[in-house]
């Protein structure tokens, strides 16, 4: 499953699963991530799965690159672990104040607002990875008709809860943060909750997300 392993700095392994971004390669990443998480190998202190890579960080006081590499190479990666295939429903409010980049998208896609939303809401999105900021899900694949580049000049502050799209991906800004994705709406749902220490993140890699529209009145009730 892992195509190549190299070092990243002196405290991490860089595991490459291939060049493509698709749900099959990503499922391989998540399988190895889940196996390593369950193995609880002494000295491994962090795992960062992404579309097609897995970064395994270790504590240099306990173990080193060569030893972790040998452990992972000898780890029997049996058949893929079934990834929990649950669908999470996320409400989005499309009120004007939340449609920061809709004008831009209308120009790029040559479609009307209602067509854009119809396409966006018509499918479920697969969560490839979580991160950058706490709890932020990177999901795909957005319909080819809606694909657009990042803003040329990223916003200094994207409001918390913003739903953004760029290329074939969509995400949710779990905190106010700088960012360059095209913002189409906002969710009142708390995606990252530090008080739920065992399950602080609502959307995990491998989950599917179905968005649905709510009114501003409903939004304000959350």
């Amino acid at each position: 499953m892992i195509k190549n392993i190299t070092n990243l700095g002196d405290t991490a392994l860089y595991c490459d699963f291939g060049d493509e971004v698709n749900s099959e390669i990503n499922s391989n990443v998540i399988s190895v991530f889940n196996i390593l998480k369950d193995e609880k190998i002494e000295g491994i202190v962090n795992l960062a799965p992404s579309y097609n890579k897995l970064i395994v960080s270790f504590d240099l006081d306990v173990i080193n690159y060569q030893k972790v590499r040998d452990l992972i190479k000898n780890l029997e990666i049996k058949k893929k672990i079934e990834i929990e295939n649950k669908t999470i429903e996320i409400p989005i409010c499309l009120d004007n104040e939340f449609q920061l980049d809709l004008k831009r998208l209308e120009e790029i896609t040559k479609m009307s607002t209602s067509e854009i939303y119809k396409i966006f809401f018509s499918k479920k999105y697969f969560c490839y990875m979580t991160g950058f900021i706490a709890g932020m899900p990177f999901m795909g694949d957005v319909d080819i008709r809606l694909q657009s580049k990042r803003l040329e000049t990223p916003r200094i502050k994207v409001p918390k809860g913003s739903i953004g799209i760029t290329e074939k991906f969509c995400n949710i800004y779990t905190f106010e943060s700088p960012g360059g994705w095209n913002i189409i709406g906002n969710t009142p749902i708390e995606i990252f909750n530090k008080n739920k220490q065992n399950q602080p993140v609502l959307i995990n890699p491998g989950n599917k997300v179905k968005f649905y529209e709510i009114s501003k009145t409903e939004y304000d009730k959350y």
Partner: protein
Amino acid sequence: MTNTKNNFFSIIRPGTNTTYQDLGRKNLNHIGLPVGGAMDIRNYKLANSLLSDDSETLIEFAYQGPLLKFNGKEVKFAITGNVNFKIIRSKETEIGECYRSYNLKDGDQIDIISVLNSVYGYLAVEGGFQTDLSFGSSSTNTNARVGGNNGKKISNANQIILNNKNSNNFTKKLNYMNSKIEYIRVIKATNYNYFTDISKNDFFTKEFTVSKFSDRMGMRLSGPVIKNNVSTNIRSEGIIKGVIQIPSDGSPIIMLSDHGTIGGYPKIASVISADFDKVSQLPPGSKIKFEEITLKDAENLYNLYNLETQNLINQINQI
């Protein structure tokens, strides 16, 4: 949280970037949380060791530190780093020395005026501070709003509560001077070959300057533009502390304790662990160069760094 029986500091001036820190939190990169923790781990350890052997939460400050008034029963404190501070007592004002523990009595003030030719300093008290924990750590990450003080910098609105502990330690001292790093040792990283031959050569031979756009997340450098001849973006993937990313403007960014857990810029190199503390302490305007070493050397240098830290802890004397 306020408990009138506990010792506490009232905050007269919070300082520019004053936060609770410990050694950070593990196994959360996959949900978007970096390890975090003290930027200068050696100085964190020395501050705690001057008071006890425990790894406690302490206060990290940057540039200008806080002015604090102590309220309660006698307690000891110590400051580490390269810090200009004074202790204002009812009858006298004493110029403070770093790497030495002092007694504080009710009404005494600590004025942490500035950090000299560096960025971070540490204030530790006997028994540690009473703070919020997130995922078992007090380390404040203001981006994710986790850790001490509900994930925020310490401000005038707060009070700093101390854990109760009897003051029966001896006064302790260490002779130590921080040195500034000039050559940052790095290992080539996964996208090294994305860059032009001239830029690869520039990276290891020319001088870079630390820019003012540096904080607990990362440090931006200016210098020769590092040109890319493959792609200025890669598929977003996990990154770690020490990674040097080159965004499309060609100016390196070194990832520090509170870095984003995912990055989409090519990685040219990664700072070795033995140099993290000293890199974190580089103030804007500092001139540095990068030096390439092997992974094996990096591991040996980390062991040496640990031995040096342990030697310093062993050299702490009663006075």
